[in-house]
């Protein structure tokens, strides 16, 4: 039992660290703000969640201490990180940060133009 538990904890922490490292790599490699924000919101979130879960299991099994703070941390990270990604992307688009040259489709631009025209006319 303790052997398997140890293995699970090790795998969780390692997987989380690997995910975080790879998403950092994605931040360097991807070409524009929006794609970078994909890497930052998803993989980094899952990485942090895995590490926190590993720490929680370690405290529970080896130190006999159920750490509610870690659970709360997991929930908070889970809720806030997609909102942060959304707000970053939205602020970038509204201030006119260009998309990557090879982007295919942009439905938002005409909608935004329409909205601005309405604002200026009223």
């Amino acid at each position: 039992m303790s052997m398997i538990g140890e293995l699970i904890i090790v795998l969780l922490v390692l997987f989380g660290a690997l995910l975080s490292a790879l998403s950092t790599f994605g931040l360097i490699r991807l070409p524009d703000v929006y794609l970078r924000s994909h890497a930052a919101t998803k993989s980094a979130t899952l990485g942090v969640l895995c590490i926190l879960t590993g720490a929680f299991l370690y405290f529970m099994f080896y130190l006999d201490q159920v750490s509610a703070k870690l659970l709360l941390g997991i929930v908070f990270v889970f809720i806030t990180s997609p909102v942060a990604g959304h707000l970053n992307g939205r602020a970038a688009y509204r201030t006119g940060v260009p998309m990557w040259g090879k982007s295919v489709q942009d439905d938002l631009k005409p909608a935004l133009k329409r909205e601005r025209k309405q604002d200026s006319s009223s």
Partner: protein
Amino acid sequence: MALQILLNFILAFVWMFLNDDWSFPRFAAGYLIGLTFIAILRRFWPHDFYVRKLWAVVKLLALFAKELFISSIAVLRHIVSPKLNIRPGIFAFRTELRSDWEVTVLSCLICLTPGTLTLEVSGEGDVLYIHAMDIDDAEKLGEQIKGTFEKAIMEVTRS
């Protein structure tokens, strides 16, 4: 739903009063007894039996976790592949969900799905503008979102 849960708690406390025993097992027993009574009397309530809704919430959370896992793997595959073979784009997605709460949950879910990110919610709250990492076919992606997330959210909010 909240009323039914509150009633269930009250019944559990009544059970504890009746037995004059203030331990957790007694509370759990009272809660189960109250649950069966509410289940028997469920047709007198205007809403559905609350356990069904609770189950829908649990299913939504499981979906959340699953999608987060799949999407990170998908993004990582794009990052580590030697050639950047992606076609990003923004597409409009018309949703049937109405209340602010439902649209918020939906956009959070979309932010965590394979390669999609909500950029903007229109003023009326019925169109979401989604940045997709690999926009093979916007229609197909929209259908997929509709099939899984909208359905799961509707199961929670509509009875």
